[in-house]
């Protein structure tokens, strides 16, 4: 009884702003907008690239998370010109170019279309930038944290486009954001008419400002940069714009000095999130767990190796395995206390097998860094410390 009272008092006391009722055993008051428990401190890791605010990224703490949905507050971000303050009631989407009827849509107009919700992963085209050159990061948040999973809600773009009538000569759609830099990307018409989404919701609520409030483009399975945030203009054209962010950035410079351009899809990839870099484990039983994903449909298999890649065993996939979404895998492991190298590799429904670093670099060289999707080995030292290899 005494312990219970102390526990409840503690629970109520730590909730800032909530009055503690001295002689009550009931808990704290309710909150109009929820917060996590005070002891839960997992956070994004922010890398501001320049002294001017607005360029850089924040990365998801993958090692701390369960399941496959990233809490919205921990979803990764990559910005090129900061986060604009936009009022939804004043925001408009203009659709023009090679269309029969150029249109202006308010958010209210867009929300009137039948809504569509689906769980998808999103990954930055530059996730794990640096590893291709052999510059590894100490933990999975910093190395792989430009990756998140969420339920996105919006309107299939092709439904909205019925109202404007896209002309047959239109082969590309240029999507532009209302951020300070008016970031723009050219999207092939096939993707636009396939599964492109005008998204206004994430994990059941309106987009957060950092995720493009009130409207963003969402292109399932494609590099995050194409999912233009704060979307305010769609221009249909017979050619791509060759914008800065699709030429100078997000292109893959190969060994021969030629760069692959319009490399949109994220190829299959997996990574062990626990145990992973900077964690310390004790000998005995551990469940190795991690995530797998592919921009080309479904993950069909994840294998784990605990002997540096000599032998591989199949991991269990959390069902249901959704296409274009994060997949959680698990593998039971008893660590004998001797140095070990653990890693995962995945296969997707196209038969694509995740390559090793050496296999990738052999073909692509080490110039690029974008779309790097090689196997990630972690070394478990005899002292239990997990480090990058």
């Amino acid at each position, binding site marked *: 009884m005494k312990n219970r009272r102390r526990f409840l008092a503690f629970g109520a006391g730590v909730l800032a702003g909530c009055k503690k009722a001295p002689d009550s055993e009931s808990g704290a008051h309710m909150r109009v907008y929820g917060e996590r428990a005070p002891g839960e401190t997992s956070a994004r890791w922010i890398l501001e690239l*320049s*002294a001017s605010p607005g360029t850089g990224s924040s990365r998801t703490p993958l090692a701390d998370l369960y399941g496959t949905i990233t809490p919205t507050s921990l979803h990764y971000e990559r910005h090129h010109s900061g986060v604009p303050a936009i009022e939804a009631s004043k925001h408009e989407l203009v659709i023009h170019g090679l269309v029969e009827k150029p249109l202006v849509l308010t958010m209210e107009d867009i929300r009137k279309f039948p809504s569509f919700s689906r769980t998808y992963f999103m990954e930055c085209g530059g996730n794990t930038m640096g590893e291709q050159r052999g510059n590894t990061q100490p933990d999975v948040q910093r190395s792989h944290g430009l990756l998140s999973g969420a339920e996105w809600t919006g309107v299939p773009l092709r439904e909205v486009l019925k109202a404007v009538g896209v002309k047959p000569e239109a082969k590309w759609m240029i999507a532009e954001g209302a951020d*300070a830099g008016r970031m723009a990307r050219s999207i092939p018409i096939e993707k636009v008419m396939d599964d492109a989404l005008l998204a206004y919701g994430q994990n059941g609520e309106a987009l957060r400002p950092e995720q493009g409030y009130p409207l963003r483009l969402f292109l399932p399975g494609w590099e995050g940069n194409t999912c233009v945030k704060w979307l*305010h203009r769609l221009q249909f*054209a017979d050619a791509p*714009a060759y*914008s800065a962010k699709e*030429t100078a950035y997000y292109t893959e410079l190969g060994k021969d000095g030629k*760069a692959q351009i319009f490399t949109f899809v994220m190829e299959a990839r997996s990574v062990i999130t626990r145990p992973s870099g900077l964690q310390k484990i004790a000998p005995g039983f551990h469940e190795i767990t991690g995530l797998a994903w592919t921009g080309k449909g479904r993950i069909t298999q994840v294998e784990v190796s605990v002997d540096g890649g000599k032998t591989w065993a199949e991991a269990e996939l959390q069902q249901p395995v959704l296409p274009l979404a994060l997949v959680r895998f698990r593998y039971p492991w008893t660590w004998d206390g001797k140095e070990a190298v653990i890693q995962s590799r995945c296969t997707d429904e196209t038969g694509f097998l995740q390559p*090793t670093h050496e296999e990738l670099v052999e073909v692509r060289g080490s110039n690029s860094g974008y779309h790097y999707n090689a196997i990630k080995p972690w070394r478990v030292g005899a002292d239990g410390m997990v480090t990058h290899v």
Partner: protein
Amino acid sequence: MCKLVGFLVAVSCFGQGRPASAELIQKLDITVFADGRGLPVGKGTAAAGRAIYKSKCAVCHNDNGEGREKQYPALIGGIGTLATERSVKRVGSFWPYATTVFDYIRRSMPFDHPRTMGVDEVYAVTAFVLHLNGLVAEGMELNEKNLAAVKMPNRDGFVPDQRPDVKARR
């Protein structure tokens, strides 16, 4: 228009929104294509761009485009390095089209005050950045008719997506 008959209400209201006027589109449309379509009427030389650059760009990109620490990118250098281990991707060495340089400067720069320059200022400062890279002469006037013809060193340096290019072995 909305018809007020049951299920059809929804269906026929989906085409909502209002027509986008030519004036609105003209105001918003800042896309410049590689062939020069979309370039606004205007002109400028590197000679005129030097002073604009000095007052509006040098604070971040340095006096001659050398860039500064904290990721203020250099706007010069790298030409001839792309096929080497130490490749340097810059405006002059990597960007395929001069129109992209113009488009990006017009839409995104100066970083802290984007879209505050007049059209002629954008032509002039674009000419100056290209001049710093040795790509246009100081006195050459760039305008909506000739900008797309400026040949960037890496114009032919891009190839379509080659993936799946990496074959993993079991």
